[in-house]
Each structure stands twice: as structure tokens, then as C-alpha cells.
């Protein structure tokens, strides 16, 4: 029987108490409960502490460049849409460096699950502001505080009609695991923004700070009501909603690419040179 031991990877090089640990646990538990074996999943990650996660578990992994997780994941899915593909990135990675790719992954509705470890700070480069760092936060390289408005990934997702947009919290492993499972089950692109304390560099958004604010969406909340979802996505401050804020039934991109309707591209790798000979005739 599949257990979380099957998902044990290398020893993490994260700081003690890092919010990445519960995320890793939630991921392993979600996979085990879904009955997915390590070779049946490919994780694509970028650069940052979050992006090391694939090494600390067991799965196929493409640990690529900062910000470029989604294009790699998109290419992978188009080549093999039978492979569960999970993109792991941090807030700087996905919302900063890779912002353009995020917009277009949402537009495509490519069936990739994007787990963003959103700790509202840059950890690996030691404490600079990320796109989700609160306005006014003073950092070493921003002595006058962050001058730009804090990015709201959920509002962005709803605005772009993202297939599935959820928020969870690293301090609530059960909730996070549940959201991860829902994201995997969803047919289409899924953004899971995971609030995650950075114990070393973010002294504002701590476990306690989040615990005082996060609350689960009420059971009667309808995530398919886009206008209501947008209103709820704007809620940030004293109260922060967690759960599936928005979802729709758009067909995944892979279902709309006629070439791969029958079987994955990967299984179409035969080359028929007689067909080339026929095509050459078109040039006469």
C-alpha cells in the first residue's frame, strides 16, 4: 500500500521551522490519499526555496529556471497529457519573474496544478520584497519601504477567469492537503496560493499573524459565482479567506488541441517517410 514513506526524498535544506515543511507534508499526504505513485507525477519547479521541494520528495522532476516553471509544465503537458504535472514556485518566482507566463497559463487553462509558496518575501536572496510583500515594508534594499501595491494573486486569477483559484495556509496542513487534492481533481489550470511564513526574513507575516486572520470559506459559499469570487478575493487584512475562491468549467487546453485528442503526443512518435514523400510532391 502506498504510504507517505514512498514519497520520502532527500533531507531538506530549509531553515528549521520553515513554512515549506508543512507544505511538503500536505503534498505527500495528498498524493498518498489520491493513490498516485511517484512515477506518475512530474513536478516542475523554478528557483527559490519552494522550488527545491521536488528534491525532498519522490517524483519525476524538472527543476528549471527562475520564473519559467509554467512554460516547461505547458510543454510537458502538451507532449504527455496523461502525466499529472504540478508546478511548484515561490511568490517571487511565479508572480514576479514569471508573471507573463502565469497570465497565459490561466488564459490557456492548461491542466497544470500550480502550488505557490507565498511567503511574501524573497528568502533565498535574503529578504528583499516580493510582489506580495505589503506596501510600506522596509527592506535592506528598499529603505523607504515597498512603494508598489501588493499583488493580489486571487483577484488576478478571478479577473483572468482562471479555472481554479484557491488559497490555503501552511499552518493548516489538513486544509492545505484538501485543497491540493481538489486542485489535482479539477480539470484545468489550478492556482493554489499557499500562505507560508518565512521564519527567517519575514517578521511581519508570522504563523500567529496568519492564524489570527485566516478563516475558511463558509460551506454555502459558491465558488462558481465569479462576481462574488472577485469581491471575496479582495478581502485581505484583518480577515483572509482560505478555500476555493473561484472555479469554472472551462475545458482544459489539452482537450481543445485536436492533435492530441486520440492519444498523447508522446505515443505518436512514429515517422512515416512515405508521407514526407507525398508532402514533397506539393512543392512540384
Amino acid at each position, binding site marked *: 500500500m502506498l504510504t507517505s514513506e514512498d514519497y520520502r526524498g*532527500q533531507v531538506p535544506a530549509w531553515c528549521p521551522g520553515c513554512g515549506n515543511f508543512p507544505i511538503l507534508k500536505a503534498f505527500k499526504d495528498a498524493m498518498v490519499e489520491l493513490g498516485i*505513485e*511517484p*512515477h*506518475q507525477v*512530474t513536478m*516542475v519547479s523554478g*528557483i527559490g526555496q519552494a522550488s*527545491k521541494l*521536488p*528534491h525532498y520528495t*519522490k*517524483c*519525476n*522532476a*524538472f*527543476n*528549471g*529556471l527562475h520564473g*519559467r516553471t*509554467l*512554460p*516547461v*509544465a*505547458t*510543454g*510537458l*503537458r*502538451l*507532449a*504527455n497529457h*496523461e*502525466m499529472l504535472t504540478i508546478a511548484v514556485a515561490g511568490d517571487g518566482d511565479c508572480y514576479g519573474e514569471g508573471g*507573463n*507566463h502565469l*497570465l*497565459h497559463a490561466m488564459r490557456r487553462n492548461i491542466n497544470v496544478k500550480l502550488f505557490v509558496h507565498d511567503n511574501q518575501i524573497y528568502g533565498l536572496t535574503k529578504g528583499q520584497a516580493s510582489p506580495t510583500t505589503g506596501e510600506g515594508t522596509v527592506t535592506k534594499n528598499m529603505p523607504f519601504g515597498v512603494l508598489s501595491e501588493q499583488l493580489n494573486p486571487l483577484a488576478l486569477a478571478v479577473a483572468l477567469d482562471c479555472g481554479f483559484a484557491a488559497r490555503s495556509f501552511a499552518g493548516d496542513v489538513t486544509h492545505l492537503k484538501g485543497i491540493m487534492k481538489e486542485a489535482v481533481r479539477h480539470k484545468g489550470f489550478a492556482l493554489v496560493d499557499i500562505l507560508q511564513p518565512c521564519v527567517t526574513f519575514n517578521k511581519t507575516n508570522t504563523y500567529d499573524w496568519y492564524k489570527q486572520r485566516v478563516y475558511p470559506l463558509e460551506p454555502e459559499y459558491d465558488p462558481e459565482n465569479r462576481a462574488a469570487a472577485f469581491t471575496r478575493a479582495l478581502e485581505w487584512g484583518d480577515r483572509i479567506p482560505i478555500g476555493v475562491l473561484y472555479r469554472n468549467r472551462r475545458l482544459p487546453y489539452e482537450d481543445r*488541441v*485536436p*492533435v*492530441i485528442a486520440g492519444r498523447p*503526443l*508522446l505515443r*505518436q*512518435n*512514429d*515517422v512515416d*517517410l512515405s*508521407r*514526407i*514523400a507525398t*508532402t*514533397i510532391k506539393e*512543392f*512540384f
Partner: protein
Amino acid sequence: MDYSIKIGGEAGQGIQTIGETLARVFARSGYHVFSHQDYESRIRGGHNFYQIRFSDRPVTASKDRIDILVALDRESIGLHEHELAPSGRIIYDSSALKQKHDKPSFLDVPFTDLALKHGGDRIMANTVATGAVLGMLGMDLSILLALLEETFRKKGDKVVSANREAAMAGRDFAAKGCTGCSFPVNASTEQPKMLIAGAEAIALGSLASGCRFYAAYPMTPSTGIMNYLAGKEKEYGIVVEQAEDEIAAINMALGASFAGVRAMTGTSGGGFALMTEGLALAGMTETPIVIGLGQRPGPATGFPTRTEQGELQFVLSAGHGEFPRVVFAPGTPRQAFHAVNKAFELAEKYQVPAFILFDTYLADSQWTCKGFDLSGIKNTDYRLRGEAFQKLPGYKRHAFTESGVSPLGVPGDARHLVITDSDEHDEDGHIVEDAATRVKMVEKRLLKKLPLIKQEISPPSLYGDHDADIMIAGWGSTYGVMREAVDELSKSYAVAMLHFSELFPFPSTGQFDYLALLEKAALSICVEHNATGQFARLMRAETGYEFTSHIRKYDGRPFTVEGLTGELNAHLRRL
């Protein structure tokens, strides 16, 4: 018999339609054809032309001197009248140009009136013009009429017959009106020929190589590859994805390649500048990829629709860090077709990026040939799949091996995990920091593979006198014009050319000692479409050999036969 026809006018007037139709008619008639285009970076207006040369002997470049100018606007006359051969003619429609020319070299053909009268629609003015050119040449219309039927069949019989009427009206008018015209056309005894442009040949090469995924962002002159492949998506089972930018394009291709399919991207210099980060990722993760890089004059946006060979040094050094790469620079569509196949084979065999370095000139130029030989096309599956992968007792994606090439497993085909990383990694693909693994990985990834790849590289081709005093050298798209220049000069000199179509790793002299030929020659002239002699620098860096002379062109326009021959002669006179 050797005629050049230029069709000039504004963008959007149908220059390309007339040009492509005529080129096809000549190719189907069995003649040798070469065409090239000159256009501006705009959708409507400006000055553009399409130039076709056809002959009963091989033609591989354009000439300055033209025999027939089809002027669709006044500017074409102003700009090109002086290029006319003594017996040449300009055909134009005085009512459309609102300008009448009385010189005997002008032939006024009412394209629009004839289109309205015989075709019923002014849209057929271009068909009239096409028929008129064939009328001036005294050629039979049967091939054109068949072509019109193929082109317009989908639009119904009425459109087909109207176009046929228009073509015949143009032919009749020109044949009758072109008094004193003398364009004798020898009947061709040869079979219909294949007519193909460089961009199409590259695309066809990728299909023949089993490419299953092409991601790109539109950019001249590479867009033609994407367009052609997109038209073949269903037939060949290839996914063509228009990415949000070039960064995404190369990363998507790498994702698809990692997943187990042959993948390619294409761009021009500006887009490639964005891809360099992903190129290094291909190098580090040893993910096979083929990149079509169509050069155009830079820096920055430069001349978007014109030609240059300005990115050789860029492609050789692009990407941060050190990793192997292969660079092909085909000189003809046929070479391009085969180069793409070899690029895919080497990219997969050695798990490295392979480039097809072309330019606007090659992308747009059409050449004729008897056909492409498919017997040399290889499709070796270098990946570990299915049962073969499952049977392995263990698997390490980046295992140390004698050759430096590690097994390339398809994720999901076995229980073995396929892991790779842009960080320095161990044999399993996990991040490491230790010096010893780093050294072994660099040896594996780079130092062991490079000499093996070098052995696969073909030497330059030699054309002309095998005991030449004068050696002309070049690479990529200048092949055809250099060849014609050699033909011209060989009437008076012992001359030969060396053409390099595989540039990196730089070809060794083992199979063919081209350096000995160069060193023996009294004069060696390196011909390049750039300002600084990038190939000459590569030659010196790799072999220590220094060319005695250089011809460098950087005005964005291709060499013509007369242009290059003239410049070569200037060097020869100094001998």
C-alpha cells in the same frame, strides 16, 4: 537562356502572388528557378519586389540585370528602370499608374480593364499580369491554367474560368502588343522541378525528423517555419504552440522534450536574445532541442525584413556557462532539409542544443531541384521507453558514462524517476554543492561529449578548381551566389570555393584538409554578410588560419551575381 523578372509594387498589391505563380510555372515547365524577395516592415504600401530568375541551366542567385519588370506602381519604374537589360521591357498599366511611358522599352497592358472585361472582377488584374509575362515570353499557358484551377478550385468553377479568361487575355494582349520583344525561351526537356524556399525546407526537415512539438513567438524571418508546420499539425501529429514570448517558447520546447518528444523552436536574433537563458537550461539539463535561428540585421530591431549573417558569434557564445552545442548553417533549401535532420539526430544522441543558423535571404529564397533524397534521413530513437526502460534494474538520469552521454528516460514509462535540475546536480539529478561532483559533471556534460560531436561534423564543400590559386570561402546562405561567382571567374582564373555548412564544433581537417588548400592559394577571400568578419574570426580562433582578403556586406541586401563577382574582381586586380 537566362531571364530575370522583377515584380515591383507596394505591399498588399499582390507582388508575391504573381511572383510565386510565375516561379511555379517555370519550375513545372522543367526550368531551373531562383527567386528572392525584398520587402519592407509594413503591411501596406512601401516598395517591395519579388525577383525570379529562370534558365535551362542551374541558377542559384539573383542578378542585377533584369529582362522584364512588372511595375505595379510608379516607384518600381523609378527605382528599377536602370536595371533593365538592353532588350528588356517594363510592363505596366498606365491607367492604374496614371502615367504613360512612350519609350520602346515600355509595354502598357491594361491589367485592370482586361480583368474587368474578361474576368469580371478587378481582383484578377494580377492574373492578367501573370498571363502577360508568359505572353511576352511566348510561353504556352497550359501550366498556368492548370495552376489557376488548383488554386481556385475551392472557390468554384466560375472563379476558375474567370481567372483562366483573365490569364489568356493578358497573354494575348502582351503577345500582340510586345512588338520587337525578343525573349526566346528554349523548350525544356526536363521533368517538372520541385520549388521550395528555405523556411519551408527547414519545416519539412523537422517533419521528416519526427519533430512533434514546435513552440515559437512570431518573428521575421522564422515565422514561415511555424506557419508551414501549423498547416501540417493534424496530418503529422505535431503540436505548434504560439508562446507568449520567446522565453516561454524555448522552455515549452524543453518541457516537451523532457516529456519524451522531439521538440524545436525558431526565432530571430531579438527573440533568441530572450531564449539564451533557456538555452543554458538545455545545456545544464542535457535536454535535446533544435533551434532555428533566422538572422536579420541588428542590433535591436535593425532591419526587420532584411538579411544579414550577424549572429554567428552570438550563437557560438550564447547562454551563460559552458556547455556543448552544434551549429549548422545550410546554404540551400536542400542543405537545410538535411541539416535539420542531422541537427535532430545529434541533439538527441548527445542531449545538446543544435542550431539551424539561417537568414532572411535563405528563408525567403526559392530554389528548384529534382526533389529531396529521403534515403539518408535518419530517425534514431535515442530515448529509453516502455519495456526497455522498465527492465533496467536502476536508473540515474545523469549517470556518469564513458561517452558522457547518460540514458534519456521517458518520465512515466517506468517506475524509475527521471529527475533533472538547472542547479549543478548529481547522477540522480539532485542538487549538489560539492567540488568533486561538479568536476565530474563538467567532464561528462562538456569535455567528453565535445570531441565526439566534432567527429560527426562534415567538412566544408569544395566547388571549382581543385588546384586553385584563388579560394573563396563562406558559410550559410551565400552558397548560391558564391557558386555563380566561381563559375564567372573560372573563365579567367583557377578559382574554387569552400562552403561551410556545419560550423560548430568546427570541422576538423581529418577527412578533407581544407586548410592545405587555403594555405596553398595565392589569395583567399572570405565572403560574409556582416561588418566584422565573424566567420573569419572563428576560422582564426579554431585553426590559426587568416584569410588574405575579405568581402563584407552589411546593407541588409543579398549579394547579386554581378555584385559579388565585381567585388571579387576588384580583389583579383590587385594580385
